[in-house]
């Protein structure tokens, strides 16, 4: 297996190439641009026999992907921030049309004020679109997860689009050693082509046209069930990947040093790596702390979260975005999943790292500090610069 030194963006490009995508359509936006730039190079050089469809916006890019996928092509796109927001309408069309589009999302803050730096608000804002959502921590995971996403999205029991979200710049423009699976291994892991979806060339038919109140709900319920089945299918997909390629990223909620832990922090994306180091440091000092990495946000791993809650007294949730008028989205999801379970540990939300602010070991340590004390408000904005005492929300 060749090892390469790749940026997070190149890792995604290589994953799409290894998946033998047939149609790529995308519009450039920082920090996503180089994902599709590299794919355009692969297409231009003939290394990747695919069609690269140039479009005037992300909205059109997603429409191209939906149309091509409807006819059975394997398709890929990538975007960030405002581009993802512009796609929003078509994201619903993709899930409703049950097309297995795979998209790289390079997480970037939303304007105003304008920012190009990482923040999860762009993809979190898409949580209700019916897309499977992965959040990755490293360039290796970005590559592997993109391949997992194709297999899961195209699974006959699922047939839903999937996005693989990775932090802008922390991954996208940072190089790391990445093990590239061989083409033979990827060919063994992925079907040669996606299963047929709705349309066939040469047969007149229409997709997603008017449905009255008498049957609309039933189509929505089909999407809901498909999303539930995605949870059931993921372990099989990950096990197969491990068997063929030799790597497993631990399911939707991999745990780290949670045995006998009193307090566990739930993280998404690159903050996980920092948090893992902090857990080690605090463990060395005798503190009983652990980490749960929320790797799959949709479908939300309710069962895994409840199992974790059965073993720990305090759970903190780190959100790299905020839902105005409520709380961090992951915080809200964890709270919602635990309410229906038997165990309800003390729960606190931490908002940090917005607009690319560094989440340092000290940031994470202060979260564990607040969690141990168990006092104060439900949500704490960590690292906020204010002259006065921070007004606590919640």
């Amino acid at each position: 297996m060749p090892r390469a030194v790749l940026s997070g963006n190149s890792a995604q490009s290589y994953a799409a190439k290894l998946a033998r995508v047939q149609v790529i359509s995308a519009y450039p936006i920082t920090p996503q641009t180089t994902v599709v730039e590299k794919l355009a190079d692969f297409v231009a050089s003939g290394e990747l026999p695919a069609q690269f469809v140039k479009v005037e916006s992300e909205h059109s890019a997603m429409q191209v992907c939906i149309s091509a996928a409807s006819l059975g092509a394997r398709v890929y796109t990538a975007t960030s921030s405002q581009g993802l927001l512009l796609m929003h309408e078509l994201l619903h069309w993709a899930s409703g049309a049950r097309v297995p589009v795979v998209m790289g999302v390079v997480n970037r803050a939303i304007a105003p004020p304008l920012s190009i730096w990482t923040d999860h608000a762009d993809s979190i804002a898409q949580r209700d679109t019916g897309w499977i959502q992965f959040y990755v921590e490293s360039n290796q995971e970005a590559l592997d997860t993109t391949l997992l996403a194709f297999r899961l999205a195209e699974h006959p029991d699922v047939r839903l689009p999937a996005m693989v979200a990775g932090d802008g710049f922390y991954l996208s423009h940072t190089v790391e050693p990445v093990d590239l699976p061989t083409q033979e291994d990827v060919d063994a892991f992925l079907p040669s082509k996606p299963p047929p979806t709705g349309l066939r060339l040469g047969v007149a038919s229409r997709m997603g046209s008017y449905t009255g109140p008498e049957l609309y709900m039933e189509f929505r319920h089909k999407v809901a069930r498909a999303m539930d089945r995605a949870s059931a299918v993921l372990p099989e997909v990950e096990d197969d990947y491990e068997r063929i390629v030799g790597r497993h990223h631990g399911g939707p909620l991999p745990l780290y040093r949670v045995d006998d832990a009193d307090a566990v922090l739930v993280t998404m994306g690159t903050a996980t790596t920092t948090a893992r180091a902090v857990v080690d440091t605090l463990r060395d000092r005798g503190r009983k702390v652990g980490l749960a990495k929320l790797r799959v946000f949709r479908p939300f791993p309710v069962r895994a979260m409840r199992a974790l809650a059965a073993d720990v007294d305090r759970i903190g949730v780190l959100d790299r975005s905020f839902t105005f008028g409520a709380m961090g989205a992951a915080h809200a999801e964890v709270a919602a999943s635990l309410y229906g379970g038997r165990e309800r540990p003390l729960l606190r939300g931490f908002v940090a790292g917005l607009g690319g602010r560094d989440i340092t070991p000290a940031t994470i340590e202060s979260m564990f500090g607040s969690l141990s004390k168990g006092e104060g408000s439900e949500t704490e904005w960590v690292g906020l610069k204010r002259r006065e005492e921070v007004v606590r929300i919640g």
Partner: protein
Amino acid sequence: MNAYETEEDLPEVPVASVPSDVIKTAGWRTFRPVIHLEACTKCNVCWKFCPDVAIRIDEQGWPVILLDYCKGCGICAEECKPLAIEMVKEG
């Protein structure tokens, strides 16, 4: 009877192989256009303006309202220069 009664009857993907004109879309009409042919000049302006393609021109060149699809918007009556189209309240 509708061929689709429950979720299990439906295809997984919302795809149909019959044209969309099987769906009659005129159910919410309040006013119906009535063409007075004695005033009509066969200019086809009504046909051109109809946003729902709910007017066809017959072999003699007369406009015919397709009442399965006409939503009663009244644009044809508004645009008709010789005032040959009257909007009549549905009973």
